[in-house]
């Protein structure tokens, strides 16, 4: 097999996932939170494809495709929410949106 070994791919994937997780945890703008979520998903996808290639088994790639489909729909809903928030002139800050507090 040509190219770098699977460890490199998994490393980058973990790096991407970490960046994403950090973004979700510390950023307050819902748009950026969504973006960070996407990065996390893509990190996971990269790991799936890397392992799939290493194991010579196509199942991982299929999983990755499914994740992409889910991510696309999730972005639709998420962006829709953000637009709706903006239309109602609400602050675009996830800490302000705490209606569900018990």
């Amino acid at each position, binding site marked *: 097999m040509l190219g770098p070994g699977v460890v490199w791919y998994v490393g980058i994937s973990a790096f991407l996932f970490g960046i994403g*997780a950090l973004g979700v*945890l*510390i950023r307050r703008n819902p748009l950026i*939170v969504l973006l960070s979520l996407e990065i996390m998903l893509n990190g996971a996808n990269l790991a799936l494809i890397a392992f799939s290639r290493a194991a010579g088994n196509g199942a991982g790639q299929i999983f990755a495709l499914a994740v992409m489909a889910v991510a696309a729909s999730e972005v639709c809903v998420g962006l829709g929410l953000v637009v709706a928030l903006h239309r109602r002139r609400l602050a675009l800050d*996830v800490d302000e*949106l*705490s209606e569900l*507090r*018990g």
Partner: protein
Amino acid sequence: MTTGAWLCLFAPLAGTVLITLGGTRIPRAAAGWISTASVFVAFGGAVWSFFGLRAHGSQHGVVSTAWTWLEAGTFKAGLSVLVDPLSTMMMLIVSGVGGLIVLYSIGYMDGDDEERRYFAYMSLFVFSMLLLVEGGNLLILLAGWGLVGLSSYLLIGFWHEKPSAVAAAKKAFIMNAFGDATMALAFFVLIFHSRSLEFATSFATAGHLSSTAVNLVALGLLGGAAAKSAQIPLHTWLPDAMEGPTPVSALIHAATMVTAGVYLIARTHPIFEQARTVELVAAGMGALTLLVAGLVALVQTDIKRVIAYSTMSQIGYMFLGAGVGAYANGMFHLMTHAFFKALLFMAAGLIIHALAGEQDIRKMGGIGAKMPWTRWMFLVASLALVGIFPFAGFFSKDAIIAATLNIGWYGYVFFVVGLIGAFLTGLYTFRLYFIVFPGKPSAFVEEHHHDHHGLEGPWTMLVPVGVLTVLSAIGGWLQFGPYWHPLTNWLEPAARTLGVAEPTTTQEWVTSVLALALGLAGIGVAYAIYGVGRIAVPKLPAVQRALEHKLYFDEAYDAIFYKPAVALATQLYRVVEEPFVLAAGPDFGEATLDAAGVVRKLQTGMLRTYVFFLGTGMAIVAVVFLVVR
């Protein structure tokens, strides 16, 4: 041939659906005509399958399955219809007489507030009954059986603003549900042993069941038959069912419903023959019912109730016939009874219609002068009911009584009871006739009678009554015990009459002469008492009171089932409901609120807290997985 049967089955259902979907978009009158047309189309289908079956050669019947209706493991039941001599005969009766009754309803129900609902129910009723008689396996038969119970409930309680009608409807439904339950239990036993409810398999299985099992099955079937056919001890719903409109009574009593029990015995006779004791119990039940109902009919004062008890009594004859093994005779009486009983109800309906809803015979005196045609038609029906030559009942009733002669000592008991029944039939029928028709119109009649544009009713009511008068007069000639019996031959492949239930020609003659003489004697006594008043009504206060209370069956059921149930419920309320449920309720609520107060703190509303919990959870899961490996 099977196409005809399917058409016959689904035409009335289509009528119901059309009227229901049409709702207020169709005029009221149209609902009646749709319903009538649907039932007559069904009659066409029945005629089609009748001639189809004749031409087919094989008289053993053809099963046509539309699809597998129910499947569970190895058990399978299809939505299928069976076309055989027995089912075609029932199809013809149900749709033919039923069609006439629905046509009659158009005139009778004219101007009622909810005509559309009425006619939708009528079609549904006919459909249910057709499903019952055409069903190609016992499961479909049971489905029809239950649907008949449902539609009778809907129709008996049709005038839902009358509390008595609602009570009567509930009573009928509960009694019938009891019968449905015993039938279902019988079917469970059959399924347990043969994994099938097909007629042929079930009957074959019945042959090598243990006697306990086969007796249980037969008893269950008998319970269903007795409930549907209003035989003692499950008969109390039938007189109360008179709360429904008169054509409904005609439909329940003549064409559908109460005849279902007789059909069931004839249909499942191989099972009953394996359990001969139970079959004879059915015969005994019929004998008892025909006697008791005949006696109770003597003291009733409501015109429809007299006829209702007469129905019970006549169904008793059919049970007697089917129970001793003379299935064809039972079915023959079922057919002639359908003619003259429908006629009696419809003629009574004409009177009730003309008197603006009055049903008390003591007020009707002398109505014959106002309604001569009704009088003659009622007379024909009465003579047919009593079994006077040459009207229909003569041929069918005597055949049943004669069939009891050769089966053993109890046969003679049945024979005597049957003859007493013939006398009682003459007495109560002509008591009714002589009280209601002859003489000068009473003051009540003079005041309330109104004709219909110079006729005795609208033509939609008169035509069916006329047709049934002809059928009641000549319908019996189809079969004449000693000389010709096409009906017995026709039914033989489906329900062969047992050898012991075939009387000799001499026995037939003797029975006929005796029954005719006793029937005439009954008429004579009725004439002497009620016609000319030569004999006073015998004064037997105790007996009379007992009969007026219908021999205390209702009171007994009240004391045995209703009162203990109410007492038990009251006690349960006092001992269980009050101290536990009612007292503990608020405590449960508060405890739930307190517990929730602790947990709700977790819901901070902060996205980051949630993500943190998510991450922590995942980390814990990951650690656990690693450790466990």
